[in-house]
């Protein structure tokens, strides 16, 4: 019996390795959490969530908006905004060079992408952070784009959703980046005053100046499962308090337990639940056969029915 196996297995191994060599580069991806080797097209159908362990992998800003928005009627906002280097910042590399490298690597001009579109038929303005662009850090362009997203939502009388993934403020823009915290927070107060909803959707990871401004200011604060979210990074805290951090510290589930989040929404339900929440906050009727209606259907002429009867 063992002889029989020995004869068969080496052959099988050879066949397997030959097959692997023929597989085009990048068709397989290893789950960073459970190390399962996953077939990429299947992984993509599963919205970049590991089918084995449900690990929510990081996705690019554009992929996020692509997953979230209806395919029809998308319009990118402030796509042309480019970062400037007012401080002529230089560490071991020049900021200009870091920007150029990040732009080349991601194909984005900066770390935030904003689009107007629809989710299940419901008009929405959606923003997504590009974590691969200098750690999704917030500088003047991110701040300005976010404010324009808020303004677009006010103009269109629709809700705002922001998918954050960021290490915080961008050091290379120094105090200018710090001021973006105030800028984005101020704009959100305007949205609030207009009675329009803002859903802050936190994805792995959200820290520092982004966490301590636009990310925590949602009418609803929601997060993906097991995203790391906090003000100070775990290493900084560990060095400061000199004790081991508790299990699950700064994960979405930890934040939910401590009252910082309204809910955790798995990626598979991102579209349906966000749309359903927005519709409720905007006083719209439940989802019909073709998604949500843009305007609530009022009996008779809506303008006249709003008037008190004489």
């Amino acid at each position: 019996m063992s002889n029989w196996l020995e004869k068969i297995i080496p052959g099988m191994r050879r066949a397997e390795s030959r097959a692997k060599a023929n597989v085009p580069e990048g068709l397989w991806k290893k789950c960073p959490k459970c190390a399962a080797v996953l077939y990429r097209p299947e992984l993509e159908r599963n919205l970049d969530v590991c089918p084995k362990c449900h690990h929510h992998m990081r996705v690019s800003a554009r992929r996020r908006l692509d997953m979230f928005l209806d395919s029809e009627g998308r319009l990118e906002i402030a796509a042309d905004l480019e970062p400037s280097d007012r401080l002529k910042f230089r560490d071991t590399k020049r900021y200009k060079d870091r920007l150029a490298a990040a732009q080349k690597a991601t194909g984005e001009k900066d770390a935030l992408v904003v689009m107007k579109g629809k989710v299940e038929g419901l008009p929405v303005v959606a923003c997504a952070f590009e974590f691969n662009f200098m750690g999704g850090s917030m500088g003047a362009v991110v701040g300005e784009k976010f404010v324009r997203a808020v303004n677009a939502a006010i103009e269109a009388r629709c809700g705002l959703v922001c998918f954050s993934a960021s290490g915080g403020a961008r050091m290379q823009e120094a105090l200018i980046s710090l001021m973006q915290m105030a800028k984005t927070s101020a704009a959100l107060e305007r949205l609030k005053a207009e009675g329009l909803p803002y859903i802050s959707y936190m994805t792995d990871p959200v820290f520092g100046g982004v966490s301590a401004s636009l990310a925590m200011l949602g009418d609803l604060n929601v997060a993906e499962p097991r995203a790391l979210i906090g003000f100070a990074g775990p290493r900084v805290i560990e060095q400061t308090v000199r004790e081991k951090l508790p299990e699950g510290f700064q994960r979405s589930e930890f934040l939910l337990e401590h009252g910082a989040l309204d809910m955790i929404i798995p990626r598979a339900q991102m579209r349906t639940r966000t749309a359903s929440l927005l519709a409720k906050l905007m006083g719209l009727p439940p989802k019909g056969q073709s998604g949500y209606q843009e305007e609530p259907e009022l009996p008779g002429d809506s303008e006249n029915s709003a008037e008190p009867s004489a």
Partner: protein
Amino acid sequence: MSAQERQHNPYYLDFEQPIVELEEKIEELRLVGSAQDVNLQEEISRLESKSKALTAEIFSKLSSWDIARLARHPKRPYTLDYIEKIFDDFDELHGDRKFADDPAIVGGVARLDGKPVMVIGHQKGREIKEKVKRNFGMPRPEGYRKALRLMEMAERFHMPVMTFIDTPGAYPGIGAEERGQSEAIALNLAVMSRLKTPIISTVIGEGGSGGALAIGVCDRLFMLQYGMYSVISPEGCASILWKSAEYAADAAEAMGITAQRLKELDLIDAIIEEPLGGAHRDPDMMAARIKLQLTQSLEELTALDRDTLVQQRYDKLTDFERYFG
């Protein structure tokens, strides 16, 4: 005895040592003069003008890192020192009404030239026990929530808000995270941006990142000449970008943390000049200068109606040109 062999005075920075030595010499001469009844006045005067010239010379070529160290100077006046010197009739108010009172932020009602105002500031401690009590000026969420409570109260009672910024940053601790450090800071930024009463902020020492900004969204932002204001501490920036905190001086230079640089970038409204040798050399003079700036600005701001005030603040906060240059 050479200068290097002399005892280094731990209350002063290295570049201040020659000045301190000269001053000690002057003090010795004074003692000798009074004890032995000899007139050394001429010599003392000569040394005093030498000391002034030396101080002026040393302080004319400070690096960004020197200024960062002055901003954290152990003898630098803190918020409560200024409150005592600038305002009358200060009543400290405590607690966030939710969890605790955070001694790293102090606040209360006071009078500025007779007019009621709300004063809020970070508070550092001077001796070890006090430092620990004040958590080295690093607030927890309760500190920010107390500040918010006081600011909203100020709005209700039509009192202007004056804040003093002096913190290494918000405290990075387990409890602080559990109780929502980020949310506490974020909410302050949001509410301050639309608070219908004048807000004037002054960076008196260290303006450390979001922990500083959380009481610093305002109509007028002033900085003392040797204050610093930055998105991350020079050490923190250096350890991330240079991979070692030893490059803090380079990081300080690159980030442009000084009042002068930030004024050039139009990110602050004015620099309040410090007495020769820094605020700790003459806290009374420093306080008088701050007071003058505060009263002048308050006059300008109270002339505006509330909606104009808030609109101007919003326009300034969200201005595009200011950040893109």
